[in-house]
Structure formats: structure tokens, C-alpha cells
């Protein structure tokens, strides 16, 4: 029931939000969360809007009562204190139980979304992502394709102190990379995230994925982009001096374009990448291939 309401609410709001100016991040307003381009992202956005409006509703009631008191019971208005009003078990019970129900109502859709997010089964391909200080490494498991991705050259120049370059003139300042991650549209992609030196976090708002890249451990997540496009993200865990300068780009291509890209990549880099993979993950490919 809550779900249905939530969806309606979301639809209305989505319409509202869409009319606001958007720039920089795709689908991005400058004051609300992105609606995203994956099923999970839509769920998360809907959930976000539900809990936001629930909070607003509670705020209206609670702040309403406060403001009313401030106006109605001011001494300058001649209010006289009723010093007998000191406790009431009845109202205590009421205002303890009502919030419990509200919370349960919020927890149910939240739990559903959480389960959906954690379900990495039936993925169609796997990509291993490794965070380094300060760049990302992508390995297409079972494909022998591997490359690094770091802050694009023009952003890097502009960001130096005293560079004299106006960030406004740099396209996607601090958000663009030299080699974006490339993936096919409408494909369930499992990402296996780890760190090389310190903890980083791989975050692409439009996919509603944020997972820590922890050295020595591999975290899993997944996404299924519904729209072809160029999506931006950033490292979301303090990882040292250049934490602010290791963005993430994902190019979602049509399946055909992706196949072409992959073939090119393999042809160009097959020998080198294969060795690299073998070195870093001897037993990996067989066990993890989807």
C-alpha cells in the first residue's frame, strides 16, 4: 500500500524535479538526488522521496504544535501557566506508538530495496574494480581487458593551485577521466570492488551504487543501466591527498557498440592485459566468471 502511494508521489515529484534546471551530472538537479538510470536507482530515489515527505509531514505536525504554542501561550498575550499539566500516561503511550508504526511503514519498502540491491545473482558479466591512490583500475573478467582510469588531463591542469585556468571553462571539471569504464546497456553487470592501498569507494549516483573498495577484500554490487549515456561519479571515501581528484566515468553503450568497443580493445591490448590479469588474480577468472 505504501509502495503504491510512494510511486504516485514519486511520479508527481519526478515531474516537478524534471522542470528544475539540471546541469553537470546527468539527470541531476542542483538540489535533489538523481533519479538515476537503473532499476535500483529508481527505487532508491522513490524511497528517498518517501522518507523525505514522511519527515516533512511529521515536521508540519510537530513544528506546527511548537509554533502554535509560541504564539498562543506567550505571556505577552496574557497566557497564564497551567502548572498542573505535568504528565499523562495516555499521551505518552500515543506518541510512543505512532512513531513506531510510521517507522515500520518506512522500513518495509527500505528492506525490499535493500534485498534487491544485494542480489547479484544472474549477472551477465563481471568487472573487477580496484581503487588505487589515485586512480581506478578496471578488469573485464574473462575478457582479458584491463585498463586504468584517471583524472582527465585538462582537469588535472586546471586544478593545480595557481594554474590560472578558470574551472568553468573545463568540461566536467574534476569529473572527467581519460578512459571511462565502458559497459553495454540493459545488461546486469556485477562489479567486484577492491582497493589496492587504502580504502576508496566507487560511487556512481545514477546507478545508486556506492561500495567501499577495501584492500584485501572484495565487495560486490551490480547495476543494469537502462539508458545509453555518459555517467559521472567520484571516489567517496577519504583516500589521501588526491581523494577529491579520482572521478569515475561510465559510458553506457548500445549492445552493438559495446561489442565493437570490446573487440577493438581486445585486439589492441590482448597480450598485455592477459599477462596483467594472470599476475594479479591467478585463480580468479574461472571461479568468478558469470
Amino acid at each position, binding site marked *: 500500500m505504501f509502495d503504491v502511494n510512494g510511486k504516485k508521489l514519486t511520479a508527481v515529484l519526478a515531474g516537478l524535479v524534471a522542470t528544475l534546471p539540471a546541469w553537470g551530472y546527468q539527470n541531476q538537479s542542483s538540489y535533489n538526488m538523481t533519479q538515476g538510470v537503473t532499476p535500483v536507482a529508481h527505487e532508491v530515489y522513490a524511497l528517498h522521496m518517501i522518507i523525505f515527505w514522511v519527515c516533512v509531514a511529521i515536521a508540519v505536525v510537530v513544528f506546527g504544535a511548537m509554533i502554535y504554542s509560541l504564539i498562543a501561550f506567550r505571556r505577552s498575550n496574557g497566557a497564564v501557566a497551567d502548572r498542573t499539566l505535568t504528565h499523562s500516561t495516555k499521551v505518552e503511550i500515543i506518541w510512543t506508538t505512532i512513531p513506531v508504526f510510521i517507522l515500520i511503514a518506512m522500513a518495509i519498502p527500505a528492506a525490499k530495496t535493500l534485498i534487491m540491491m544485494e542480489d547479484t545473482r544472474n549477472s551477465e558479466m563481471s568487472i*573487477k574494480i580496484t581503487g588505487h591512490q589515485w586512480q581506478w583500475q578496471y578488469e573485464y573478467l574473462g575478457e582479458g581487458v584491463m585498463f586504468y582510469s584517471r583524472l582527465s588531463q585538462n582537469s588535472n591542469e586546471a586544478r593545480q593551485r595557481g594554474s590560472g585556468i578558470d574551472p568553468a571553462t573545463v568540461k566536467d571539471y574534476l569529473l572527467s577521466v581519460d578512459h571511462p569504464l565502458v559497459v553495454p546497456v540493459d545488461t546486469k553487470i556485477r562489479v*567486484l570492488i*577492491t582497493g589496492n592501498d587504502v580504502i576508496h569507494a566507487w560511487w556512481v549516483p545514477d546507478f545508486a551504487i556506492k561500495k567501499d573498495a577495501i584492500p*584485501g*577484500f*572484495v*565487495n*560486490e554490487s551490480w547495476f543494469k543501466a537502462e539508458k545509453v549515456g555518459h555517467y559521472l561519479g567520484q571516489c567517496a571515501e577519504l583516500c589521501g591527498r588526491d581523494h577529491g581528484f579520482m572521478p569515475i566515468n561510465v559510458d553506457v553503450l548500445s549492445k552493438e557498440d559495446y561489442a565493437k568497443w570490446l573487440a577493438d580493445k581486445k585486439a589492441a591490448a590482448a597480450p598485455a592485459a592477459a599477462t596483467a590479469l594472470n599476475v594479479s*588474480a*591467478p*585463480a*580468479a577468472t574461472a*571461479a*568468478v566468471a558469470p
Partner: protein
Amino acid sequence: MANAHTPADQGKYYVPHGSPWPFFGSVSLFVLMLGAALTLEGSDSIPGSYVLMAGFALIFVLFYGWFGKVIEENQAGMYNLDVDRSFRMGMMWFIFSEVMFFAAFFGALFYARNLSIPWLSGEGAKHATHALIWGSYEGGWPTNGPLKLGPHADGSFEKMDAVGLPAINTLLLLTSGVTITVAHHALRAGNRAVLSIFLALTFILGFIFVGCQALEYHEAYTERGLQLGTGIYGSTFFMLTGFHGLHVTIGAIMLTVIWLRTLKGHFTADNHFAFEAVAWYWHFVDVVWLGLFVFVYWL
């Protein structure tokens, strides 16, 4: 109370009038910590170890001076029952804070055994961890981790067995728990001879425990390939038993001081906060050991 006409007699809560010791204590801690930091960083310009030594010296003076003052006041009968109760409550909560300090390290042990080791070896929620990174690691306990950290080139080490020294140590501490209780009863009954004998027994047992612990460490380091750097097993083993050993040492020193005080005729059947505080501390050290024996040596 012993003396007549003391403030304590009049039901007054004794409030000291100003004391240099706490400030002195803050300076001591500062010197100690600075010394430790400099030593660890291997600073050349200021020899850290000298600063560290100076810090320890100051701490020693601090305890001597501050506690000496408190003892003096107590002997003079300045403290009434309320002051006594404050001291007691203070000591209890101090011991509770110590319990929580150990809890952090026990927590690390449980986390490693029940979560991180299984994950690294491919069990549970993070099987990709094993598949992608630690392919050949089998886990289990004891372990020094997938890269088999430790002094031996092949990464081998032996864990400590529960039988042998640790069992003897358990016995030592349990016995010392009994002896201190006997001493306490003797104090209440006014039997000074039994008091000082059993108190002496208690700290002697304590120091023997520390000696055994040293033997055990020696064996671990030289024969078993078990060192602080022997992976998570070595880390948890030495940090838990090490901090415990440190507490036993402190406790035994405190017992010795108390014993010297009994020889000087301090403490009466109904006024012996310091004795009881040390006894509680000793029991706490005992209980922690039981936890160690079960979770570090045995299971």
C-alpha cells in the same frame, strides 16, 4: 575513626584545599607521551628515549607524592564514610573502564575468528574475496593470515597450548584470588600476622605469574615462531596477554605497597579502602585471565 576531633568525626566531607599533584601529573603524562612519540618516530634531534625515561620517572614521583598525600590524610583521620564511599565508587567505575578496554581487544579477537578469517578463506558473504585475491588461503584458527606473516620464512608457527604454562598460570592466579580473600578476612578479624603472610603470598604468586608469562613469551619468540608480527593470531595473542600481564604487574606492585603499609600498621578492620581497592583490582585481573584462558589458549 581512630583519632578524636578530626573533621571526619564531625560528619564533614573532606575537600582538599588545592594540590600541586594533579597539575604535576598532567605534565608527567605530557612528557611521557611526547617521549613515547619521539621514540617511536626515531627522532634524532631530541633523543626520545630520554624524554620517555624522564616521563616514567615523573610518573613514579607522581604516584609516590599524590598517593602518599592521600595516605597521610587518611591516616590522620580526615576521611569520613562518605569520602570512603566516593573512593569506592570511583575505583569500581575505573575498573569498569578497564573492562571495556579489554573488551575492545576481545572484540578484535572475535571479529577476526568469526568474520574476517572466514571471509578471507572464502566462507560466508564475501566469497569473491577468496576467489579473486587469496586463492590458496584455507583459514582456520590459529592463523597468521593468507600471506603467513611471521618470523619464519615458510610462515610456520606454533600456537600456545592451554595445558602447560598457561594452566599453571591459571592455577597461580586462582590461588592468589584465594589468598587475598584470606588476607581480607584476617584484616577484618584483626589478625595481622595472617594478613601480612597471605598478602605477601598473593603478590609473590602474582610475580611468579609474570615470570611464567615471560618464560612463555621467550619460548614463543625463540622456539615457536610466534611473535607480535605473526599475523592476527600473534597480534591478538600478544596484545591480550601483554596488556593483561601489564595489569598483573601493576596489580602486584600495588599489592606490595599495600603489604608494606600493613607492616607499618596501616588499615583497620573497618577502614581499609586501599586494601579493598587493590583486592578488587586483583579479582578483575583474575577474571580477565579466565577470559583469556578460555578464548585465547583453549578454544
